[in-house]
């Protein structure tokens, strides 16, 4: 990687120059930083796109909403940048930022309604109602939204994701995952996962794939369903239990056992080398299906 010698400077046309702000003023910021620098990014409304690249510098481009102010302050080890919060009760106008950072840098990105997209970046991503979409390779991902959709298509040792009503999609090649929703649908389609905890209160959970050998998965749902769509060659042990719901086994001929007062249970031992999957619901239906 090349190390640039230029220090950072922000060029903000319009608002910074004191001129009448145009509807969206362009912003350009550039600074040489260390490969593992950390950055805190805040943009209340609009979009934030973060790209990890092979240069030891941070570059910010974009357009700042009318009346909004861009701030940036950093050293070689990292810093803060984004759009200043407006006075209480005033909604911010949308600003669109594209941020290039070294691949190994650690980010903390926070928005209110702005959508977040990231490629080859790691760290903490948070939005109140905006969507979060992350892809590429990462060292760790922590993505949370109060009500927005969260979509992860990443290769990472560890992934943690939460949303309320939003749709949560986990793909790619994470190794450990802890993901949950409150009422949103949770879709999991990844073949490489070794440890997984998937939970919802009343959102449906869909899992597509086959747990690899030695994998341990735990599904938990209160009133939403848990659907496992398995390939024909799926292996391992599936322990299914529901207190007041149903268990539908469309994969083998084994029928669930009814324990008086305790609901239904079903243990599917598919043999061979496979993982262990436990599924628990209160009233939600559990389905295991084949191709």
């Amino acid at each position, binding site marked *: 990687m090349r190390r*640039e010698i230029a220090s950072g*400077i922000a060029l903000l046309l319009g608002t910074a120059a004191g001129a009448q702000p145009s509807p969206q003023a362009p912003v350009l910021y*550039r600074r040489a930083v260390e490969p593992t620098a950390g950055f805190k990014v805040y943009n209340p409304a609009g979009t934030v796109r973060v790209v990890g690249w*092979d*240069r030891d510098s941070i570059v910010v*481009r974009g357009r700042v909403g009318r009346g909004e102010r861009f701030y940036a302050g950093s050293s070689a080890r990292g810093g803060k940048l984004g759009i200043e919060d407006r006075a209480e009760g005033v909604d911010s106008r949308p600003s669109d930022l594209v941020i290039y950072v070294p691949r190994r840098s650690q980010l903390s990105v926070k928005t209110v309604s702005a959508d977040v997209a990231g490629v080859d970046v790691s760290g903490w991503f948070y939005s109140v109602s905006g969507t979060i979409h992350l892809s590429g390779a990462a060292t760790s991902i922590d993505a949370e939204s109060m009500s927005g959709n969260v979509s992860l298509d990443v290769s990472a040792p560890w992934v943690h994701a939460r949303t309320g009503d939003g749709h949560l999609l986990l793909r790619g090649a994470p190794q450990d995952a802890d993901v949950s929703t*409150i*009422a949103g649908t949770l879709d999991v389609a990844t073949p490489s996962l070794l440890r997984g905890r998937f939970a919802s209160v*009343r959102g449906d959970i869909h899992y597509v794939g086959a747990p690899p050998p030695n994998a341990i998965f735990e599904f938990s749902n209160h009133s939403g369903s848990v659907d496992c769509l398995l390939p024909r060659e799926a292996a391992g042990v599936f322990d299914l239990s529901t*207190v007041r719901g149903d268990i539908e086994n469309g994969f083998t001929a084994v029928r669930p056992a009814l324990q008086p007062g305790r609901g239904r249970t079903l243990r599917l031992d598919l043999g061979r080398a496979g993982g262990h999957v436990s599924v628990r619901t209160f009233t939600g239906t559990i389905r295991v299906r084949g191709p």
Partner: protein
Amino acid sequence: MTTPEGIPHLTEAERQGAADGTLASARRRAVDAHLSACDACDADVARLRGVIARARASEPPPAPLDALWPDIRARIERQKVVPLVPAVTPNGVGRSRVARVVRIGAGLVAAGLVAALGMSVVARREGRVVVSPAPVAAAPGAGDARLASNPADSSRLYEQEVQTLLDELRLRRALLRPDVAARMDHDVRVIDAAIAELQDALREDPNNPALRQLLAASYRQKRDLLRRVDDAS
């Protein structure tokens, strides 16, 4: 993004490299050729060069480290308050040995304090349930995995943590955005309804492990929700 002739514009990395002169020579020729034909990229690179020039002009001149070091060393020496040369006590026992014993003792106490602090930090993060130090390399959430083995305890401990978070949020509720507060209230109602159903079921069947595990999971959801709200404020 392409030019009117359908040629792709330079990438961000190529433009940055053209502006600060860090492109490899083979790539530089291709980039230069593009710049001579594309006004948009040429103007952008010129703008970047302007930014770099202004940044360099505002930088203080670099001082060579060798020139700075004697002054730094002198300041460090002036601020030293403990003599580094060991003194000898009248009874013949080197003070250094006494000091070494004191240092070892202090070190042990400090190590104990650090270990205790580590345990309390982990315990606070994971619901005050960890009674042994967590492995240094444990991933976040590893404490929660341990909770799964004891659902009865974990429900109670999650509940305590939830109550603490609720108390804190009650104090700061006025600082929450109205839409966040409304969203929190809605989601808390959803989770509380689930918790109430599970508690009713547990009253009928108190020794049902599946119910206890589901209850622990619901409390965990509530704790995570309150932490999210905390992050939003």
